[in-house]
């Protein structure tokens, strides 16, 4: 890539684009008239929403309203007003805990299994049909089955995260292990390195970038899925928060949640990208 002559140009454009979008949003969401229909019974008007009183429907929130909500959530992220009303920070915490639990189990299982499949053509051929059938199943399709068999919604959510993160890691690990350069393995063989030490000192570092790519794909999917899973099962988590605010038709809160989900997802992805960079190598 060529270096930009004016390094401030790109950020400036980003900010301008944001300002433009917010402006369009503000204009589009502007309630047309909030004047109460003069013919309306004032007692009736008091019982309905402001927009309905004007003869219209309640509108999209403006950027200002969303900003206000966002500020309120960010300044008080950990409040706890009962089982069903907890702060955004706590909800994110629940979601992250579920994602990490399911994800770490998936890593712990998929990496060794991927090693096996990658190193043994027999295991590859035996397991490949299962992988091909199970891989494309939407993780949410597992939810009813998980609820029915596991009989615990928290564990079911973790299971769904596990099942969606396991495939990319498994497939990438197997691929990475299978495509380790023959030369490196030969070096290890001529140096009489034990199979176990070869696995840890040659194959693992050689396949690490590919494995990390799979892990990065998985964490992205897991974060996508947790929101949907929690909307389905409810209780706690950022997905439940979205569902609860949908229930209240609070579009402003939903937009806040969407922003937060995006930022957390980006943070997770950045972390994995960092890790991937740490284990990557140039030949």
């Amino acid at each position, binding site marked *: 890539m060529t270096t930009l002559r004016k390094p401030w140009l790109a950020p400036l454009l980003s900010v301008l684009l944001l300002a433009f979008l917010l402006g369009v949003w503000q204009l589009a969401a502007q309630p047309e008239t909030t004047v109460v229909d003069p013919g309306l019974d004032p007692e009736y008007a008091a019982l309905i929403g402001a927009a309905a009183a004007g003869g219209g429907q309640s509108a999209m929130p403006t950027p200002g309203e969303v900003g206000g909500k966002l500020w309120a959530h960010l300044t008080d992220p950990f409040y706890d007003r009962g089982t069903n009303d907890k702060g955004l920070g706590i909800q994110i915490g629940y979601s992250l805990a579920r994602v990490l639990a399911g994800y770490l189990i998936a890593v712990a299982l998929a990496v060794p299994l991927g090693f096996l499949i990658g190193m043994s053509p027999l295991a590859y051929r035996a397991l490949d049909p299962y992988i091909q059938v199970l891989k494309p199943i939407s993780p949410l399709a597992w939810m009813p089955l998980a609820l029915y068999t596991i009989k615990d919604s928290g564990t079911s959510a973790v299971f769904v995260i596990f099942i969606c993160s396991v495939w990319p890691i498994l497939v990438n690990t197997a691929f990475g292990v299978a495509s380790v*350069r023959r*030369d*490196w393995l*030969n*070096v290890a*063989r*001529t*140096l*009489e*390195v034990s199979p176990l030490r070869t696995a840890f*000192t*040659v194959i693992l*570092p*050689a396949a*690490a970038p590919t494995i990390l790519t799979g892990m990065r794909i998985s964490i992205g999917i897991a974060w996508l899925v947790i929101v949907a899973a929690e909307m389905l099962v409810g209780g706690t988590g950022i997905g439940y928060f979205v569902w609860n605010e949908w229930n209240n038709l609070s579009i402003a809160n939903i937009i806040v949640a969407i922003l937060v989900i995006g930022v957390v997802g980006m943070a997770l992805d950045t972390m994995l990208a960092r890790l991937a960079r740490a*284990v990557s*190598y*140039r*030949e």
Partner: protein
Amino acid sequence: MAFLHIEALAKRFPQADAPVFEHLNFSIERGEFVCILGHSGCGKTTVLNILSGLDEASAGTVVMDGREVRGPALDRGVVFQSHALMPWLSALKNVEFGVRSRWPEWSRREVEAHSIKTLEMVGLAHALHKKPHELSGGMKQRVGIARAFAIQPKMLLLDEPFGALDALTRGTIQDELMQIVAATQQTVFMITHDVDESILLADRILLMSNGPRAQLAEIVEVALPRPRDRHTIHHDPRYYRIRNHLVDFLVNRSRAFAAPEAGHAPAVVNPGSDIPEPQAA
């Protein structure tokens, strides 16, 4: 019995009609430098892989130092054509990887000290902590040689180690290799495509006829005195006799070489032996 003795060696790959090579018989003495020369497809690399234990022969035996060779072992050091350095390890760590396997009882410091010494030997004292991608092709191959040398093998196997290098670098490393081999009395078996390289380095050159069904056609003795200097060696009139003989074989005779019956020992020739040794200038 010779240090390395090879008898009736043959290799047939699965699903191939004919063996790549067959009826291979030769010996290498301790401290000898032997090059193997031949066209692509004659099975040179396969021979080397069988010697290293990475590949298995279809027939025949390899006996080294009184014991049959089965599988790879630390008594043979291999320098790979593509250097085969682990790209995630520094030059030093790559060498240490071998050293630690050779002497597992050594402490970290011993391993490190020995590895540094070996790298200094190939002139890489300044690049210990560089990753392979930060090294030039020649430097990478030096690390590869250092890794093979560091385990102090009974025999060094080199698979066309300088093929990918430019002429200037190749010359420098050839010199270094010669010095180290001379200093350590190392037994070396090396594949090359380069006629001049083989004359410079080898005590004997094995000539392979074309595959499939390649055979060991001739063994050429290089009776040039050591130490050899690649700037002056071609002043020796025997040099061209040897060179012409080799080129003639590769260009004209290798294809049409008539296979003698099994068990027949290859002819040993010594081109230029009739020319008296020139007096040093």
